[in-house]
C-alpha cells in the first residue's frame, strides 16, 4: 500500500466510521470519569470497572440461556448488559464506600479496585472455564448493530451513517452519543448538575448552602461506574464477543487523560476521545506501510502529555494576565 492510498483512506467515510468505533468505549468511560472528576472525586478505577463489567457481561449472557430457558434469544445479551452495569455499580460503590465512609484515599482505593478487577476476572474465568486467557470456549452473544434504513445507496453518507460494510454502528456507539448530549444537559441545565459542579469546585461552600456533598459524590461515582461499565461492555459484547484477560489494555487510564485533555467538559472530552480514536485508527492504517506500530502507539499518550503541558501553561498565563488586569484597575481606582 502506498502513502497516497493511506492518505486517501484517512480522508474517507470509512476512516471516520472506524474512528467512531474505536472511540466509543473511551467516550463512555471518559464521560463517567468526567462526572466524578467534576464532583471532586477523581475515579482512577475506570479501568477496573470496565474490565469487571466486560467480564460479567460475557459470562452472564453466555450462561443466561441455561438459567432462563424460557426467554426469547434476543433477551440474553441484554441480561448480560444488565449484569455488567450491576458489576460496574458494585465496584464503583465499593470505591465510594471506602473513600466516603471509611476515609480511604480515593487514588489508592481505586488502584485497589483495579487490581481486584484484574485479578478477580482472571481468577473467576479460570475457575469457571478452565482457561486463563479468554472465554473462547463460551458462546457469548453480541449486542446488535443499528442500521439506518434507506441511506445505504448514497455513496459517502451510507458509509458515514452505517459504517464500512454498511452493517451499521453498534448500539453502544449510539448510547455514547446520546449520553454526551444528556450529560451536557444534566451538567449545565439541571439543578443536580449545578450541585455536582459546585461540590467539585468548593465542597465547603456547597455544604454551606445545604448541598449534601457526600450524597452528590456517591451519585457521581455510581454514575461513573455505570458509564465505565457500558464502555467495558462495548469491548466484550460489541467490538468482540469474547472476554480476554486485561482486554481493556489501559483504555480506562486513557479515558482519564481524555478528561483533562478535553478541558473537563463533555464536548471537549468527546473530541479528545475522538482524537485518541483517530490516532489508533491511523496506526492501523499506517501499519500497512513500514512505519513500526510502536511508534504510532506512542502518539496518543505523547499528545496527551503535550496537550496537558500547553493547557496548564495557558491557564497559568491567563491567571497572570488576570492578576495584572486586576492590579491595573486597582491602581487606576
Amino acid at each position: 500500500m502506498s502513502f497516497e492510498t493511506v492518505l486517501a483512506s484517512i480522508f474517507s467515510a470509512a476512516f471516520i466510521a472506524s474512528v467512531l468505533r474505536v472511540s466509543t468505549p473511551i467516550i463512555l468511560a471518559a464521560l463517567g470519569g468526567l462526572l466524578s472528576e467534576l464532583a471532586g472525586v477523581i475515579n482512577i478505577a475506570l479501568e477496573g470497572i470496565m474490565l469487571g463489567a466486560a467480564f460479567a457481561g460475557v459470562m452472564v449472557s453466555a450462561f443466561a440461556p441455561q438459567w432462563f430457558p424460557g426467554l426469547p434469544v434476543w433477551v440474553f445479551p441484554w441480561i448480560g448488559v444488565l449484569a455488567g452495569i450491576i458489576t460496574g455499580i458494585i465496584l464503583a460503590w465499593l470505591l465510594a464506600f471506602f473513600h466516603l465512609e471509611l476515609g480511604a484515599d480515593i487514588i489508592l482505593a481505586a488502584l485497589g479496585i483495579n487490581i481486584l478487577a484484574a485479578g478477580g476476572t482472571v481468577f473467576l474465568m479460570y475457575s469457571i472455564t478452565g482457561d486463563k486467557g479468554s472465554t473462547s470456549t463460551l458462546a457469548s452473544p453480541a449486542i446488535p448493530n443499528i442500521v439506518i434504513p434507506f441511506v445505504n445507496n448514497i455513496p459517502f453518507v451510507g458509509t458515514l451513517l452505517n459504517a464500512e460494510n454498511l452493517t451499521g454502528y453498534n448500539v453502544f456507539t449510539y448510547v455514547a452519543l446520546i449520553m454526551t448530549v444528556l450529560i451536557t444537559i444534566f451538567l449545565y441545565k439541571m439543578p443536580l448538575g449545578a450541585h455536582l459542579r459546585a461540590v467539585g469546585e468548593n465542597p465547603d461552600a456547597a455544604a454551606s448552602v445545604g448541598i449534601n456533598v457526600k450524597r452528590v459524590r456517591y451519585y457521581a461515582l455510581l454514575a461513573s461506574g455505570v458509564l465505565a461499565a457500558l464502555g467495558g461492555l462495548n469491548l466484550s459484547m460489541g467490538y468482540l464477543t469474547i472476554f480476554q484477560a486485561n482486554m481493556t489494555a489501559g483504555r480506562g487510564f486513557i479515558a482519564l487523560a481524555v478528561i483533562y485533555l478535553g478541558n473537563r467538559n463533555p464536548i471537549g472530552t468527546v473530541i479528545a476521545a475522538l482524537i485518541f480514536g483517530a490516532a489508533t485508527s491511523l496506526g492501523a492504517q499506517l501499519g500497512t506501510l513500514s512505519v513500526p506500530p510502536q511508534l504510532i502507539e506512542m502518539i496518543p499518550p505523547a499528545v496527551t502529555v503535550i496537550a496537558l503541558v500547553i493547557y496548564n501553561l495557558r491557564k497559568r498565563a491567563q491567571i497572570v494576565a488576570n492578576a495584572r488586569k486586576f492590579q491595573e484597575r486597582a491602581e487606576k481606582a
Partner: protein
Amino acid sequence: MPDGSAFYSTRQTDLIVKSKRKRFLLEFLRIILVVLIALGIGFIITLFVSDEPVAAFKALLTGPLPKISFEGGFHIKGINRFGNWMEESITLILLGLAVSIVFKAKQFSLGADGQLILGALAAGVVALYVDAPLPIHIGLALVAAMVAGFLWGLIPGILKAYIDVDEIVSTLMLNVIAIQFYQLVLVQWLRDPTAGFIGTPFFPKTAILPLVIPGTRVTIALFIMLASVFVVWFLMERTTFGYEIKVIGANRKFAEYGGVNTKRVIALSMAVSGIFAGLAGVHLSMGLLKRLTLNMSPGIGFEGIVVALLARNNPIGVLIAGLFYGYLRTGAQIMERSSDVTREVVLIIQAIIILLITAERLFPLFQEWWLRRKLSAELDSNVPEEEAAR
C-alpha cells in the same frame, strides 16, 4: 534549633516516647490484622472454587520455604523455591522503595513501570554494546539504568512541580510511551534474528550479575537491594532532602512558608524514585533473564504500591513488606502448579490489603462501635440496680 529537653521535662519526654512507641505498636498490629483478614478472605474465596482448598492454601503459605530433610544425610530440598522468593522480593523491595519516596512527598507518581523498563533497556544497551572487564561493565550498566530511571522520573516531576500537570495522568501516559519505546528498540535494533522469539542475544559474561546463592538466580542484586534500603533510609532520616520531602508530604504550604524550595524537591523526589525503579530493571534484565525480552515485566511496577503501603513508606518496613509480599507471590506460583487454584488469588488478597490499609476510619469506627457496645452493656447492667436502689 533547641534541644527537645529544653521544652519538655523528663517525664513529658518519657510520655512522648511512650505514646510514640504505642502508636507504632498499634500501627503494626493494625497492619498484621489487615493481612490476616485479607488472607482469611482469600481462603474463603478458595473454598468456593477449589476441590482441595486446604492443600492449595498450604502450598500458598508454606511453598516458598526450603524443606530440610535428614534422610540419607542432611540436605536441603527446594532451594530454587527459596531462590524464587528472594528474586521476587528483590524486585518488589526496589519498587517499594521507589514508590515510598514519592508517596512520602504525597505525590501519586505511578511511573515506576516505565522507569523500570527504561532502566532495563539502558542496562541492556550497555551490556550488549560496551566492551569492558567485569566490574566496570556491570558498574556502567548500573549507572546507565539509574540515569535512565532518574530522567524518566524527572519529566513528570518537573511537569508537576513547575506547571502543575497531574502526575497520575502524566506518569500513566509516560509508562505507555516507555513500554512502546522499549519494544520499538527491541524489535527494530536489538533483537536477535536467530532467536525463535523477540529478544536480544544473551548478555556477555561481563555484564551478568554474579551469582550469590548457587542453584538459584539470586545474584549480587541482593546486595544492591540491601544497599538501596540503607541509602533510602539515610536519605529520608539523615539528609535535608529527606526532611524536606517529609515536610512537603505532611503540609506543602507549611513547607513553602518554612523556606523549602518545594518545586525543586517535588521534581527531584520523583526523579530519585526513578533511580530505584531503574535498579529493579537491572535485576530483571542482568540478574534474572540475562537478556531483554519483549514482555519482560507486565505491570510489575504497580506491585511496589502495595509494598510501600504495607510499609507505611518506611524503608526498613519496605524490606519486611517486600519479603512478605514476595513470599506470597512465590507461594501463589507454587499453589498454581500444585493445585487447581490460579495465582491470581494473590491479586485479590493484594487488593483487599490495599483497600483495608487505606481505609483510615475503619479501625476507629470499629473501636467506637466496640466501646459503645461495651458502654451500653455496662449501662444496661447498671440501670436495674439504680432503679432497685430507688
